[in-house]
């Protein structure tokens, strides 16, 4: 099992390395963003999924890393404190130091209190930052330039892509190794039963602070990579939006799996890139997906893939293909229905529409959508999404029934996934 995952991992890395040769400029940019988001999500998940400490203010450390790097890039009259490829170290050190201080406060409490404290710390930074223009550049932010190093100009984004890729792979590797150190195991203990850890003699406050700081260290690296990429930093980075984004990404991907958050972040980044030009409601879709995952797929997309792989192993494809087809069909219908409804509503309530209805003679002009025109007062316009959604839900129920039947008919497994030598990359974080 382990070898299969290593093989897949190797293929993914090769694909990532080869990608810029076939990608357009804007796609390379999107790729850089995806990589940074993946690293940030995995760093976040160290605290959240592995140590069980839910943080709502992680953008503080991402931002701290970014700003420190911008300052470092500007240092020495613009020459930079370190050669460009080593700049992310600045982000790491900053993330670590800020995390030690913030974590010391935040880990004085556990559970929801901890979460609220991290939220407040993040908001505090967001409120203070615009006033400290020396550090954060006020409303306009700070900007800088990448300096050439080791014969590379870093002027074009292909080199930035490879720099980012190298650091992300390095950090992911380190994060994976961390899981297998004593402190990494302590993190799991903190998640599962903080109370009992005390009775083993652990100083829970110190241990939590250390784990917190390591998570923020890698978050700082992600911020540094962002600063290098866009050659600037602005205080809006401390906004709750970024903290919310990494949280949504991680849980949609699945925090109980090591690479789950990376998968979630990559997917969300990619969809955001593709879809955000087409719709202004991208965040709404993301929120809906998140809530659906929380309700129906608590282990995220990685969990879904794992469950499917397990089912395939038990039942074989022949028994499952019908259920697969039904599930795909149901998903397509539900996505179509939801998208249609949301886009229709969005246009109906937009300022442009209101202006249009006042200018023209018609109070309810037709709405152009997906190549056709839809009359808002017509029943058919609203019937369509209702039908799509209803059909989707009906199909979903049938798919679930087929799936259950296939699993019930199959020969039972003799062990749960944790006791078979399940690929560490998949279930490593939970065992």
């Amino acid at each position, binding site marked *: 099992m382990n070898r299969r995952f290593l093989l897949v991992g190797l293929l993914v890395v090769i694909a990532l390395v080869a990608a810029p040769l076939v990608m357009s400029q804007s796609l390379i940019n999107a790729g850089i963003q995806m990589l940074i988001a993946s690293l940030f999500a995995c760093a976040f998940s160290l605290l959240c999924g592995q140590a069980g400490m839910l943080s709502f203010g992680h953008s503080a450390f991402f931002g701290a890393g970014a700003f420190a790097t911008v300052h470092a890039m500007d240092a020495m009259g613009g020459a930079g404190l370190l050669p460009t490829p080593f700049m992310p170290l600045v982000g790491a050190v900053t993330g670590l130091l800020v995390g030690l201080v913030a974590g010391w406060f935040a880990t004085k409490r556990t559970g929801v209190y901890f979460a609220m404290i991290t939220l407040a710390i993040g908001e505090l930074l967001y409120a203070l930052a615009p006033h400290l223009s020396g550090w954060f550049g006020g409303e306009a932010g700070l900007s800088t330039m990448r300096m050439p190093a080791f014969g590379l100009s870093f002027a074009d984004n292909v080199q930035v892509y490879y720099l980012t890729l190298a650091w992300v792979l390095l950090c992911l590797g380190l994060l994976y190794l961390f899981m*297998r*150190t004593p402190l*990494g195991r*302590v993190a799991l203990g903190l998640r*599962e*039963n903080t109370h009992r850890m*005390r009775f*083993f*003699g652990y100083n829970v406050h110190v241990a939590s602070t250390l784990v917190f700081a390591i998570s923020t260290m890698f978050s700082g690296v992600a911020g540094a990579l962002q600063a290098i990429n866009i050659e600037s930093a602005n205080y809006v980075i401390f906004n709750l939006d970024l903290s919310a984004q990494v949280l949504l990404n991680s849980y949609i991907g699945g925090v109980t799996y090591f690479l789950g958050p990376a998968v979630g972040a990559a997917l969300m980044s990619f969809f955001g890139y593709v879809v955000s030009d087409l719709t202004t409601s991208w965040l709404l879709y993301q929120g809906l997906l998140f809530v659906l995952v929380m309700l129906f797929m608590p282990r995220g997309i990685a969990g879904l893939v794992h469950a499917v792989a397990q089912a395939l192993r038990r039942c074989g494809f022949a028994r499952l293909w019908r259920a697969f087809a039904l599930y795909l069909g149901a998903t397509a219908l539900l996505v179509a229905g939801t998208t249609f409804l949301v886009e229709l509503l969005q246009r109906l309530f937009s300022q442009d529409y209101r202006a249009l209805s006042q200018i023209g003679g018609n109070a309810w002009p037709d709405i152009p959508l997906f190549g056709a025109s839809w009359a808002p007062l017509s029943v058919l316009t609203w019937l369509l999404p209702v039908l799509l959604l209803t059909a989707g839900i009906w199909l979903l129920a049938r798919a679930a029934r087929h799936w259950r039947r296939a699993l019930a008919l199959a020969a039972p497994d003799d062990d*749960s996934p944790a006791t078979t030598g399940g690929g560490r990359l998949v279930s490593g974080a939970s065992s």
Partner: protein
Amino acid sequence: MNPVALSLRDVHKSFGDVDIINGVDLDLIAGERHALIGPNGAGKSTLFHLISGQLSLTRGTIYLGDQRISGLTPERVNRLGLARSFQITNVFPKLSVFENLRLAVMRQHNLQYVFWRGIEGQHAVREETEALLEQLHLMARAGTLATELSYSEQRALEIGVVLASHPQVILLDEPMAGMSREESAYAVDLIRKVTHGKTLLIVEHDMDVVFELSDRISVLVYGRIVATGTPAEIRANAEVKEAYLGEEVA
């Protein structure tokens, strides 16, 4: 005269107006197995919480040997050599049995903050964890998640993580609760073996177990110790009978 391993002096605990522990004096002799019995609600678990540092005393002192432990945090108390089990199994549900024990063992080897070396390379930790698994007869279940163990296996694990702390004084809170006859006999055997040479304070309701296992017994009623003595003395004590059965039956 054997030294006193654990000593409680005039221990009081109140929650607001409610007095749970009303002046407990108790001395545990080093190496003895001491049972704490009493009707439900007498305060036995509260006493454990006080000794282990989970609750603070309203009045009184607790000494572990020469060291005062009343007022210390549970971490400090554990590091000084006292470990306790819980009445309701309190382990790490989604971690394997091996991992559960290893967490306790790791702390003993002072590895808790190490993040620059892998855990797999720590052979001493692995050996000790495996030794514990052997003692508890859980070797075959090493990779099973704690939440998937049978009830008595969980109780065995509960005892196991206590032992991993190398305590000199062990507190067991109803280790046999919910076990069948065979499981109980098995557990008694296990406890007898693993507490050899250590001081044991055990709360139990099963009187056969209590009389079989203990050197001395103390009876706690409404937060006070009404009697302390050998099993024979306690069996003959009228006040004890009254506490359990109400009015003495002629």
